[in-house]
């Protein structure tokens, strides 16, 4: 019964929004690359070839090669795991942290709200990308620290969003009814309010994912975090940027296009997800 309702709802959500199908297709492609990138890649992404430097796209190298003769297609495919991995872990962490802090602030109010609110304001007071740079610089150059930095700069958005959503629901009749039904404060929050704020939060997360991908890649672009020769979209764009003037466009266009595709896919997914998760739109 539940399973068929779910499939019906998925069908309903996709039927209403065909673009979601496109987004899901792109997502599957990206996830495929992330999972089996090393197997799918035609070449070793780290293998240099002195005889094939800066080869334009051709049959042997569909995306061409870079200044060290590495196959760009292979590097773009293999990089998916690292780029998506960093962004997804950062978003999952800030989603969970923001949901917990924001709903506590919104539900309990008072000093809880004030303390959490001021901490978030402090984070927001910095230019966020500069803050992320500072965090990575302070903690050390590693993938983990890129995730932590991206998590911290994303946290205020989830936190404020959750706080606002909880706050408007706190005084609703069904919350009063939940208390009358024997729910303690924490149970009211987790069992009665959170299910209602998850759909808009998921949409927020999906839209935010694109930004997180850009952030992680951006940090690598300016030389923080991931180091060469690791295949990563941000580094590849950065390395290819030196070829802009000499006209070897493929060195930065393809990794850049991969970034654009990933961001685009998550933004589209946001809308579809909202339809799927919002109980008001369920059938």
């Amino acid at each position, binding site marked *: *019964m539940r399973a068929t309702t779910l499939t019906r709802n998925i069908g309903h959500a996709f039927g209403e929004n065909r673009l979601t199908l496109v987004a899901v297709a792109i997502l599957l492609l990206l996830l495929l690359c992330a999972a089996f990138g090393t197997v799918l890649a035609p070449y070793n992404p780290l293998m240099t070839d002195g005889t094939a430097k800066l080869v334009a796209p051709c049959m042997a190298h569909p995306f061409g090669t870079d200044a060290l003769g590495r196959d760009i297609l292979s590097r773009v495919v293999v990089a998916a795991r690292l780029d998506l991995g960093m962004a997804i872990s950062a978003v999952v962490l800030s989603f969970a942290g923001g949901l917990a802090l924001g709903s506590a602030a919104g539900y309990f109010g008072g000093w809880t709200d004030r303390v959490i609110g001021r901490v978030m304001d402090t984070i927001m007071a910095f230019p966020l990308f500069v803050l992320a740079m500072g965090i990575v610089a302070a903690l050390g150059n590693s993938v983990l620290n890129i995730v932590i930095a991206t998590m911290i700069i994303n946290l205020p958005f989830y936190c404020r969003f959750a706080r606002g959503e909880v706050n408007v629901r706190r005084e*609703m*009749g*069904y919350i*009063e*009814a*939940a*208390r*009358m*039904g*024997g*729910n*303690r*404060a924490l*149970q009211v929050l987790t*069992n*009665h309010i959170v*299910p*209602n704020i998850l759909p808009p939060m998921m949409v927020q997360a999906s839209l935010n994912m694109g930004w997180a991908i850009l952030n992680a890649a951006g940090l690598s672009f300016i030389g923080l975090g991931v180091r060469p020769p690791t295949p990563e979209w941000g580094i590849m764009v950065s390395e290819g940027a030196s070829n802009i003037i000499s006209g070897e466009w493929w060195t930065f266009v393809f990794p850049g296009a991969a970034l654009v595709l990933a961001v685009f896919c998550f933004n589209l997914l946001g809308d579809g997800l909202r339809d799927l998760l919002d*109980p*008001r739109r*369920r059938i």
Partner: protein
Amino acid sequence: MDIADPNPFGALPGTAVGVTLLEAQALSMRYKVAGGGMLHAVDSVDLTIGSGECVGLVGESGCGKSTLVRLLARLADPTSGRILLDGQDIAAVSQARFAGMPQRARIQVVFQDPSESLNPAFRVFQSIADPLRRLLGLKDQTKLIERVRRAAELVGLPPELIERYPHQLSGGQRARVGIARAIAPEPSLLILDEPTSALDVSVQAVILRLLADLQARLGMSYLFVSHDLNVVRLLCSRIVVMYLGRVVEMAPAEALFTGARHPYTQALLGAIPDPAKRGEIRSRLDGSPRSPIDPDPNACRFHGRCPKGTERCATEMPRLTPAGQGHVVACHFA
């Protein structure tokens, strides 16, 4: 005092005939308002509800009915006063603690707006089953399904609607879900906070009949809150009239309708449209109630709007005094 009263000596004025279920003693609720004043939402209200009795609570908007409901239902903590449920003071613990006590199941509320009081993320089953799990500790799924099914049947909710979400139901169906949720834990006292005011007139009648039928079958006590005297008259045996946070008159339903003593009650009754009384001069109220913020403790709350008021009303607050046959009234001229 009523002669049939089994306890005529210790009882407060207006005590119900029979065993007392719930008794509010000097219940008050005051809020601080911006600017430093105190808003007296409920001001030392004494009220008793007998076992199996149906009490109506009427008054205009803003008279403190809803606050009194929230206090009696233990959804808010009173500023002062006691609430005795079977002789035990349930206002002694905070409402947050009360949520986890076994007595929580004994007082349930049917809320004013059925659409707003149902969780949009919950199916009907979950809405009715959640209080059963929490209040009665019912974990067994088959027993739970049975209880939910029975509650739905009692309120006339078709079983196929149990797996629906609130947005897929009509207003009347939502009202039935709200009632089913409240009666499922088998409360001793059901508080109905204007349960029909958000419904269409045609649905109102059906829901009122359902409520009357449920009371007859389940023997719960009702506290029926409304601003509509006619609705209250249909269901209730005793009526309590509130004005600006205070009880001004309390009487058996028929006595109130035929011989209201308080000028405010008389005005309320006069406001009921009646084709038989067309052309007659009614006692009509002018203006609006006085401010509930820092009211003069020595003046009648109705003074200034009252057709009978004199200087005495401005200097002496009338007490609730018995007027025979379970009728009590707070007016110098009643």
